[in-house]
Every structure is written in structure tokens, then in C-alpha cells.
């Protein structure tokens, strides 16, 4: 199955089920391999109320290879690179399975937003805050960035 066939199937399935409330996927009109996603920050986290944009690049060998996914909105989180938007998530690397869809990938990223793994951080300062058990500092800074970068301020 080529990437195009698989993606066409995913689009059909996505349209049939309707968009999940916390993930909105958009395909580039001129290139089916380029996608954008808008995910909502999970409740009871400093990202709540924010909308975060992701850029998804699908390889030709998809679904045998995982898509490349980056945040386009800056997020303060141990497993996301603040400047490049790179995401450290096993299913995007060695734990990838063709069973994953683009929507499921986005939902896994939303889950990761609320469940940080600070031991192998892409953002050392976010990781250090959590390793020092300074949740107050982590939440305070993450919330500040959410308000500044992911929410339309009044």
C-alpha cells in the first residue's frame, strides 16, 4: 500500500468519524504528504485552553515509516524541543507501527503533553525543573508560554 492510498483511506475514515474534539487535521491542498494539525492542550495541565499547531511530513514509505512531526507552536515541555519543535516520542521512532494513524499520533502527542517524561529531555531546563520536583516552576513557566503563544489573548 502506497502512502497515497493509505492517506486517502485515513481521510475517508477521519471524515466518517468526525474530528476528535482535541485534534483537527488539515491536509495540504497541493500535496497529500504535508499535513497540519491543531491540538488542544489537555485539561488540568498548564497547556489547558491553548491550541498548538503541529506540522506532519509523511514519507513515501508511510505507513511502513513513521511521519515526521514537529510543533510549530513553541511548547515548554521536557520532551519537546522549545526552538525546533522536535518531539521525543517512541512511536515516532523505534516503537512505530503501521497500525498508527496520523490522528492517533496526534492524540499520543496530546497525551504526552500531560504526562511528561523528564529523564531523557529534549528541553533540559524543563527536565531539570521536574527532576528537582519543582512543579510550581514548571507549571508557572509552561502556563506563561501557553498564554503568550497558544492562546488568543484579550
Amino acid at each position, binding site marked *: 500500500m502506497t502512502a497515497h492510498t493509505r492517506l486517502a483511506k485515513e481521510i475517508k475514515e477521519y471524515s466518517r468519524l468526525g474530528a476528535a474534539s482535541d485534534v483537527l487535521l488539515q491536509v495540504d491542498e497541493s500535496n497529500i504528504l504535508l499535513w497540519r494539525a491543531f491540538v488542544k492542550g489537555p485539561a488540568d495541565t498548564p497547556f489547558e485552553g491553548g491550541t498548538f499547531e503541529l506540522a506532519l511530513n509523511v514519507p513515501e514509505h508511510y505507513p511502513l515509516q513513521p511521519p515526521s512531526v514537529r510543533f510549530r507552536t513553541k511548547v515548554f515541555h521536557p520532551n519537546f524541543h522549545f526552538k525546533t519543535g522536535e518531539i521525543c516520542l517512541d512511536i515516532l521512532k523505534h516503537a512505530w507501527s503501521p497500525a498508527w494513524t496520523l490522528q492517533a499520533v496526534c492524540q499520543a502527542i496530546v497525551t504526552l503533553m500531560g504526562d511528561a517524561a523528564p529523564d531523557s529531555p529534549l528541553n533540559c*531546563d524543563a527536565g*531539570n*525543573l521536574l527532576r528537582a520536583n*519543582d*512543579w510550581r*516552576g*514548571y507549571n508557572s513557566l509552561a502556563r506563561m508560554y501557553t498564554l503568550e503563544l497558544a492562546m488568543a489573548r484579550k
Partner: protein
Amino acid sequence: MEVVLRELRSLCHSLLTRLSHLFRDYPPGTLQLTGVLGLAAVLYGIYAVRNGRKPPGEAGSEDSAATAAADASRSGNGAGPAGQALAGPDPPARSWAATQPAQAPARATGAATSRAVRAALAGVKVVTLSAPGVLLEEWDAAALQDAATLRPEAAAVAREVARAARVYVIAHVADDVGEATVRGACEAGGLVGDAHYQVPAHRLLFCSTLEGKVSMVRQLEPELHIDGDPQTVEDLKRFMPQLLHIVRPGVRAAASRFPNVGSAASLAAAFGAS
């Protein structure tokens, strides 16, 4: 007789002060200097020329405060421009900001403070301030459990800094009580608010460990960080372009050999506004 002379002298002094304020506060060309006012203006001019000095109440003029900041800038220790400004000895300047109401805008806090702060910042765009000891009279998280007292002169300088740069205020607190206490003091003192000269509420940040504060400052990547904790200054000295240590009485200045680290007795003194 002596009492009468003293009273007369006091009256003249008061009149001169009022006149000097009158001439200073009106924009040039808007004051009609005719009649009694004209005569007073002539007498005032003669007095000023004969004495060759500023009239009472003008001892530390705007220019002297700005010059003090410029002097501080020149006497720096070889860091970048703002590092030079902030790493030098405390410049002599009058306590301009301390006399102003807490929530007044720059026109009321004084153009001198504004100029002195801008000269000291020298193009710095992002500043982080640790609240304990720098903005607050309390120096650590334990003391903030009981009360938080905003230093009015430090708040006035911080508001001027907020006009020229993006300011983040970080407070190390023990728990929610400490956080609420600090937030309340910063809001009541006019440091935090929605006005363009205040620090937005969401940029008032909190942490519960000193290590956490270091990580937060590193993440924010300021061009200048100001802190009252010597250990934090030590921890950040390798990462920050400019650091200013507000030294607690009885404590040694931190990392004084490092060219990017300066020290001062207070925030107002560091910016030539005290």
C-alpha cells in the same frame, strides 16, 4: 528679631521653590510673564544667576541622575555595554523614584529615572528579576510565608525597566500561601498589572526550589538577570550575558571576578535612581 528673620528666610525659600516648580512645570511659551509674575520671574532669574546654582528642591536634577547613570556606565568592568553600566560602583543620585506614588506613570515617576534606566539597560531587551531581596524586602522563601513587602523605589525602577524591555519576575516561594502573598504585594504595589509600564500578571512566575529558578532563568534567556541570592548568581554566571547581584547586608558579592557579574546595594542604586 532672630525668629522674624528665620520666618522671612523660610518664606523666601518657600516662594522660590514654588516659583521654580511653576517655571519648570509649564511648557515653554505657555506662561504669560507679565505684571507681578513677570517681576517675580526677573527676581528669580537674578537670584539664580547670582548664586550660580540650582534653586531649592532641584538639588539632584534630572540631568544629574542621567549623568550618574552615564558615569556608572563608564566605570564598568569591561563587559558588554549594559554590563559596564551595571557592574560599576553605585552612582550617587537622589532618591527620585521613592518619592513617587506607586502606580504613577513615567511622567510622574520622573524622566530622570526613565533616562537613567534606559542608559543603564543600553539596548537590553529581556530582563529577569528575582523578587526576594531585589523587589521585596524579604530575602527568602521562608520570610515570604509571613509577609511580602514591595520596595517602592525598586518597584519604580522595575516599572521603568518594563517600559524598555520584556520583564519576567520570578519568586521562589514555599507554597501557595507564599505565592498568593507575593502576587498580592506585587499587584497592590502597582508592579504587576495591565498597563504598558507594568509587568503583565502572567509574567510573574513562581518556583519552589532555587535549582528550579536557575532552570527558569536559563529557559527565558534574558540578556540581564538580577538576583539577591548569591548561589543563584554563582550558578548562572557561566550562562548569562549579564548578571547583577543585589547584595544582602552582611553578605559578600557573588562571582565578583567574573566580568559579566556586577553588584549593587539595591535595584535603585544599580540604575542610578536612588
